[in-house]
């Protein structure tokens, strides 16, 4: 039971990383991307292939996972982000399917549907961080989440974040204020892809194997649900969302009812969350983070 809660918390962290990336894209720029699963898969496979086939150290594979994921982000972002947002949703949906398609078929690199097993465990200063000792792994993944949270939260409050929000509110107005709309969108997309790639690395190290079947469209939907449920445009909220969605996911096992409740049940629930939240509470549980009011130049102003 207690072990189970640790498991939920570890998955919360791995998914929270993806949700943080999704939040930058969907919550800040207002773009619908449906491909966190694709970048997650790429990150996982980069770590698996580099460490198993080429014997790299885990800590070197993480930046590679981020780099290669963001390269693919750039590849699909550049043609689609120049246009209206709707196309991105479709292109990313297709991209996720194609990544899985290629992982399944490129036997010489990915070992096809069998996947890659026996990924070496992480070691840090000679200490092995094994997924079997859940406490250690828990601390490791949450350190990643905290770092990502801090970086993205700072970033969102910087010039980049303000530009992204301006684009979401009114693209034409933003571009007439001199914001290079496409460039900022592509940056948000690349950063979101990179963090999902890192999440993939951690996932590979936690399961110690990768198979294409683990990266279905459902993963992207779960990440989207986390952002929508927690609150778009609020990094704390999406971490909360990640916890709630993971809790729902494992609830049947937690109470020992996994034989009674069909596996589709939680997926139907995820769909319902999206619809119901959009209709009744589009801002999510916590809502968008409020900006502290800008300091006024004068204590009191007259009518202008």
């Amino acid at each position, binding site marked *: 039971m207690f072990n189970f809660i640790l498991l939920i918390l570890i998955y919360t962290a791995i998914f929270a990383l993806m949700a943080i990336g999704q939040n930058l894209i969907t919550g800040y720029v207002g773009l*619908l991307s*449906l491909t966190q699963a694709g970048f997650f898969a790429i990150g996982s496979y980069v770590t698996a292939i580099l460490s198993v086939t080429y014997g790299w150290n885990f800590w070197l594979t993480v930046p590679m996972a981020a780099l290669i994921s963001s390269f693919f982000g750039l590849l*699909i972002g550049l043609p689609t982000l120049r246009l*209206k947002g*709707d196309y991105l949703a479709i292109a990313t949906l297709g991209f996720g399917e194609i990544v899985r398609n290629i992982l*399944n078929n490129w036997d010489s690199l990915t070992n096809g549907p069998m996947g890659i097993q026996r990924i070496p465990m992480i070691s840090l200063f000679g200490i092995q961080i094994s997924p079997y000792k859940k406490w250690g792994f828990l601390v490791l993944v949450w350190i990643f989440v905290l770092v990502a949270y801090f970086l993205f939260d700072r970033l969102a409050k910087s010039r980049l974040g303000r530009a992204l929000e301006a684009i979401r509110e009114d693209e034409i107005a933003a571009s007439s204020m001199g914001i290079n709309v496409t460039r900022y969108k592509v940056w948000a997309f690349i950063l979101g892809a990179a963090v999902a790639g890192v999440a993939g690395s951690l996932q590979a190290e936690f399961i110690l194997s990768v198979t294409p079947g683990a990266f279905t469209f459902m993963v992207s939907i779960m990440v989207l649900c986390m952002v929508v449920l927690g609150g778009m445009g609020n990094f704390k909220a999406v971490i909360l969302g990640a916890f709630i969605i993971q809790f729902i996911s494992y609830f049947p096992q937690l109470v020992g009812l996994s034989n009674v409740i069909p596996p589709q049940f939680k997926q139907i629930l*995820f*769909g319902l969350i*999206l619809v119901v939240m959009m209709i009744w509470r589009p801002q999510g549980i916590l809502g968008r983070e409020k900006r502290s009011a800008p300091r006024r130049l004068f204590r009191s102003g007259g009518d202008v």
Partner: protein
Amino acid sequence: MGSIAEFFQHLMNGLTLGGIYALIALGYTMVYGILKFINFAHGDILMVGSYIGLFTFDAIRGQTMGPWTVIAFFIAMLAGMLFSAGLGMAIERIAYKPLRRATRLAPLLSAIGVSFILSNMAAWMWGTKSRKLDYPFDNSPIYLKGVSITPHQILILAVVIVMMVALKLFVDRSRIGKAMRATSLDQDTAKLMGIKADKIIAITFAIGSALAATAGFLIALEIKVYPSMGTMTGLKAFVAAVVGGIGNISGAMLGGILLGLLETFGVALLGIPYGLRDTIAFVALIIILLVKPEGLLGKAEKEKV
């Protein structure tokens, strides 16, 4: 078999496939034309329609193959169409209509939710195993100068052509069709002219969904039916709609047929491995977005403030 015969063989196969894509693309394009939004659940409405058609056919076809099974086939198709039309209208009413005035993102997210609900409900109720429709009539191919044409292909092409002509006449000539065009052009002005825009939107969803169900039933005949069939099929049909020019009915027809031909000839002549066939549509989307984002028959539109 000479190369000319081979060419016509692929042409025939491509046209059949393309016709099916075109029927689905019409639903996307009609909804986009009026509401400017991608109905992600369209592919899943197709899936539900083909299941309903399949169940109806199994229930009424009887044991022996004969004229009755052919009639039963069309009755089943009609049942699937009606059910999907109802479903499409219900979804619009429940999940999209409350979001008309919301941000652009809201209806998209809601549509993805609906799509996920439908495909998982289907998996839960009907199982994940794929099913196939029993043949309503003998399907041994007819040979025409080395080109083999199956009666199913003829049936599919006939249904596709009838549907397209009927739709084109309906939209171009009928009163409701005129109201649809007006709503798509300018919803507010259409309302001022006494057009009940909400009713027109509901009708649009009903027609699009019925066409999708028809396509789904034809897929059941040629390929198979399973709960997640709508995702890839829907995605490709959307690409077809974009290639033809989204919002344009003739464009969707043209785009669908082009995509069908491209997939067939891509595998047969260009030597693209069969496993990567699904990638063709995606590459086509990227290329058309780079070269001519408004699509082949679409008008370039400047976004206004």
